[in-house]
């Protein structure tokens, strides 16, 4: 169902042709109201994501604005990047609380996460523009959870998301949670983002 789920708006880190029905990797846990200035501080917005080398640079600065004590919960003070790779983070899934991505409309926010290798965010809910950008640009899966997982999952836990079943499994603790189905944005994600969707429904000529 979710073949070629992610769109092709920009060159990206993960290969879009990979059919990603299962997303696996380490969790990086954050709290509530992680705003776009924390996800990508304004001092890096002179990078133009339409230039591939500059797109890559965003990975380096992803989450650069998160105060150290709030980065990598529950302990905090866990850097998002390790010393081996300054661009790609060892973490694949962000787990956060309420209102993830609030603040500015900058698409650089989901781009920075994508460039750092993040494939999904699991939050209680999202600020509207961040969610739109994630879906329409196809940078990552913005899953919503009815549970307050940012207080149940630890940074570094090995997670697995079964996209088609909307299921989150914590391989480290053996816990499982149902995620909210992607619902009305599923057709856009299924098509591969806004442009692909518009081509599919005939709004744009097929490329």
């Amino acid at each position, binding site marked *: 169902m979710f073949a070629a789920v992610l769109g092709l*708006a920009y060159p990206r880190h993960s290969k879009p042709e990979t059919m990603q029905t299962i997303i696996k990797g380490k969790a990086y846990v954050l709290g509530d*109201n992680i705003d776009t200035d924390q996800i990508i501080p304004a001092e890096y917005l*002179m990078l133009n994501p339409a230039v591939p080398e500059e797109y890559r640079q965003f990975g380096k600065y992803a989450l650069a604005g998160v105060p150290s004590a709030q980065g990598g919960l529950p302990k905090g003070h866990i850097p998002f990047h390790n010393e081996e790779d300054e661009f790609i983070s060892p973490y694949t899934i962000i787990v956060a609380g*309420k209102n993830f991505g609030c603040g500015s*409309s900058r698409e650089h926010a989901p781009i920075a996460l994508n460039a750092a290798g993040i494939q999904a965010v699991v939050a209680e809910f999202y600020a509207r*523009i961040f969610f*739109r*950008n994630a879906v329409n640009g196809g940078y990552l899966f913005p899953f919503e959870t009815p549970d307050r997982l940012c207080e149940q999952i630890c940074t570094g836990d090995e997670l697995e998301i079964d996209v088609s079943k909307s299921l989150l499994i914590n391989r480290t603790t053996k816990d499982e949670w149902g995620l909210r189905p992607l619902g009305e944005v599923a057709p856009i994600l299924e098509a591969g983002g806004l442009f692909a969707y*518009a081509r599919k429904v005939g*709004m744009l000529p097929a490329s």
Partner: protein
Amino acid sequence: MTAMTLTEKILARAAKRDSVRPGENIWVDVDVLMTHDVCGPGTIGIFKQHFGQNAKVWDKDKVVIIPDHYIFTADAMANRNVDTLRQFAAEQGLPYYYDVHSPAYKGVCHIALPEEGHTRPGEVLLGTDSHTCTAGAFGEFATGIGNTDAGFVMGTGKLWLKVPPTMRFVFEGELPPYIMAKDLILAIIGDIGCDGATYRAMEFDGEAVYALNIEERMTLCNMVIEAGGKNGVIAPDQITIDFVNQRNKSGKPFQVMKSDAGATFAYEKVYNVSKLEPVVAKPHSPDNRAVVSEVKGTRLDRAYIGSCTGGKLTDFRAAARLLKGRSVKIDTFVVPATSEVARGLQTEKLNGQTLEEIFLAAGAKLGQPSCAACLGGPSDTFGRLNQALRCISTTNRNFPGRMGHKEAEVFLASPLTVAASAITGVISDPRDFL
């Protein structure tokens, strides 16, 4: 006919439908698309990637490009981004490009849009900036979008939108002279939280709203995004219509609408403004509300008056009332939003002194029109918090690092409260100076 809110009526018109309901996904025709130097280059990249290197925008009269974020900086990449906009405007033959270092230069896009006649009642305005919601003050649907959405609009003139339910905020009573629109919106955000209007429209109504001038109404709509709002909106009255007619150079006709009697609101709250106190938002969130009397005396390092929220002529008039004949005790930065506001500072007088003379005599530093330090920006940005300072500001956000340094602390307040605090160097109540 189904009774609809103002936001629903505007969206129904844009979708060429008789009615729409909250929660529906609809395709709308866009009346104006705005972009700037931070999101413009990425938007242009998406547009060219999907529509072709030689593609033309869907309607050159409907694309407005206003560089405003990183303008007066030595940063080579920031300047490169403005070059990208300039080149695109030239190749597309865009009539509404407000170039840096040219007589057409404006400054902050959300203030430039109405000044240059790009805001009209009943229209749909989309911009690659979250504070695009400011234009709801003109009775239109205005909201922020990302680069992909904007690139799509650039090529098609269309976008899908989810119709938001409307929350209604009614301000009754007479506004005391020490209360400004900034206090009203900070009070609302404090009440409903910075996610309290997520995916919703916020409509403002009541005699105290219609007693506000157009700039104060813009302040009200400007910060709906700080509550997560999709758009803010105020039904037009004669003040709106007169302003728009005076500025609407293209002469494009517009449709004045208001919420139907019997329209369904998802939430309603009535405020009596005569009872409100000056409000601040403490670090590090716009919903971290306190009345000024609770935080009075908090030591400050800096004061900042500027941005789309607090850098309009009305904001500077208010600050000048307090600063006239007084001196600031802390570094105080004054940044007019646009070149028109900057000219106003030089021409508008208070008891024989121009506003600019008042600010300079008080010891404030005057910057050039742009977004400047509101969002930090390059390290050479005027007024940027390059150290862990404590600042009181008329801007709109105080999340960690917003104005530069991650450990800086920003208090958001009205221009009156900021001016009072600049005089004393501690958070102060404007009532003590009026």
